[in-house]
């Protein structure tokens, strides 16, 4: 029970931090409005999916170094399939790419289970493999995306009966993000599989002795991670209109946001809300530093320092808890 309250307190602390950052942004740039919020949501989209992918795997007690490469691969597959194809064809491309992500994730899990090589090494190897596969699909950035897909994350959602001044603050990108994550995460968390994922992350031996199929659960966790990764890849193609075979900075960012979001490396604790809020905090911080006209390189110093300070604080609090 106390851990439940503590977890909620961490997430609500993050929300408070996000609100403070928003107020700060308004002070720095009084003109910061709904349009800027929309572009923030759009920029955060691939990060959020990468973080979601990492979160599921970390909760199950693993780590996925290949997430950025998987996003690159799924992005180029989507972009090259939609290149000079009809708009309707994209209806087939989206589920296909999601299935690819799911299968690649499952393969990661399968390799870990079968070879008994540590997960960090297996996903390091698949990082190279997926990166290479992405280069084989598309050697240079290119391809295209269907118009309706691109439009689905631009602009705002109009809800009849609610004034436009309110709906202007509901960008489509945010809705897409919440719907995609919710459709997978909420049923998962309520199912037996979700419980098993937390169980194997918390204590593999205890889970095994309680009758949880550890191998199958691990594969499932990586597969769901792969599914989120594929969503991330699709969102890259949707926001840029092309596919790029070189992975972006999503691996580092995903691990940072997972830790900042209150999910302990080692597994068994945390949820998806914290890491997603953490993504927005990190993105908004970057916006603020840009608005303050600070050298973008200093921005990465600040980001790194914040990340290190936060994890140190978290570790310090956990240590005090253990030693009363």
């Amino acid at each position, binding site marked *: 029970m106390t851990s439940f309250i503590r977890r909620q307190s961490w997430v609500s602390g993050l929300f408070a931090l996000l609100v403070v950052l928003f107020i700060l942004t308004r002070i720095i740039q009084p003109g910061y409005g709904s349009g800027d919020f929309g572009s923030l949501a759009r920029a955060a989209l691939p990060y959020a999916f990468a973080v979601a992918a990492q979160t599921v795997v970390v909760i199950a007690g693993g780590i996925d170094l290949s997430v950025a490469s998987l996003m690159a691969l799924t992005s180029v597959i989507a972009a090259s399939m939609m290149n000079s194809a009809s708009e309707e064809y994209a209806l087939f491309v989206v589920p296909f790419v999601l299935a690819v992500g799911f299968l690649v994730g499952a393969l990661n899990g399968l390799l870990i289970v079968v070879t*008994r090589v540590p997960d960090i090494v297996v996903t390091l190897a698949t990082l190279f493999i997926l990166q290479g596969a992405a280069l084989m699909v598309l050697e240079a950035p290119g391809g295209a995306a269907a118009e309706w897909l691109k439009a689905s994350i631009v602009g705002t959602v109009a809800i009849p009966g609610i004034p436009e001044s309110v709906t202007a603050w509901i960008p489509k990108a945010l809705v897409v993000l919440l719907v995609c994550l919710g459709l997978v995460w909420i049923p998962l968390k309520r199912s037996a599989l979700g419980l098993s994922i937390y169980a194997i992350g918390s204590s593999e031996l205890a889970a095994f002795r309680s009758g949880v199929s550890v191998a199958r659960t691990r594969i499932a966790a990586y597969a769901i991670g792969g599914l989120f990764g594929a969503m991330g890849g699709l969102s890259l193609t949707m926001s840029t209109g092309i596919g790029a075979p070189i992975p972006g900075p999503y691996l580092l960012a995903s691990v940072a946001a997972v830790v900042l979001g209150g999910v302990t490396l080692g597994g068994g604790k945390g949820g998806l809300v914290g890491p997603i809020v953490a993504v927005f905090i990190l993105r908004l911080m970057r916006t603020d530093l840009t608005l303050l006209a600070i050298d973008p390189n200093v921005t990465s110093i600040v980001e790194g320092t914040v990340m290190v300070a936060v994890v140190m604080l978290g570790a310090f609090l956990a240590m005090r808890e253990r030693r009363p």
Partner: protein
Amino acid sequence: MSSVTSPTPQVSLGRRVKRFMSDQPLVPLIILLIALVIVLQILRPGIVNERWLANTVKFSIPLALLAGSQTMTMLTGGIDLSVSTVATMAAFIMASQAAAHGAPVAVLLALLPALLIGIANGIGAGVFRVHPLIMTLGTSLIGAGCLQVYQRTVIATGTRIPDLFTWLGTGVTWGIPNALALFIPVAALILFIQKRTGFGRLLYALGDNEKAARLSGAHYWQVILALYVFSSLLAGVAGLLYVGLIRAPSSLSLAEPLLLPSVAAAVVGGTSIFGGRGGYTGTIVGALILTVLTTLLTILQMPEGARRVLFGAIILLVTAVYLRITEDR
């Protein structure tokens, strides 16, 4: 295990070979290395000569030094992902300061950030008990940012690599790469620390069973702090050597491509990423294997994509097979 109990001394050949290999984990690695060289020779007859050998050794050494950092930290169950940033920082600072202050001062200045990052890593991982993966990722992010800011300020002075490092990096004396003059003492030091000092035993002990080691009186944070400082300084030295070899002093991502291979070299060399098992000799062979493998994949004239796929697949395969051989005691 169970078959040994049978009274007959007749143990099947396969089992004997397997047991021999698990007792001597270096043997399968060296066999793999030789096999790779033979494949190379078959694919491109005549390539394996004195010059090729010198080149392979030259390119393996920076990788082996960085993998040394990984081996040392992995023994305690950690990892050091800041090595590539530290190496790049050391190389860039040395090259930019050498023009104004001369080589000795430049080298000292270059190792300063390595020392600082090492101390930060050690305090984070040892005192605050942050997961080393996160801690070193964070410090490497900070380091990379600092380096870019620093680059803005020194853009006018220009860069120069002192002759010593060019000599060390690329020079060959009587067919033997000069880099060995640096590498052999360093490798001997690492092996000495691992095998002959109390500090080395503490590394294995902490990686094997942290609780038991602490109860036996090991001061966790002191050991970890010393370990990460050593690891970082080693990475700094690797960077100084690497810039002499590559001769691209103004590159801000100089050693970045070596980060993941350095982890791979340690893993292929038989060091357990969970700690407590492994050693530097295996890592050196691992670095050689990866370098020969890269040459092999280059010679096959495959597209870049296929090469990376094969590289990843082979790392996974080698690690899996190697685990099977050595684990079964």
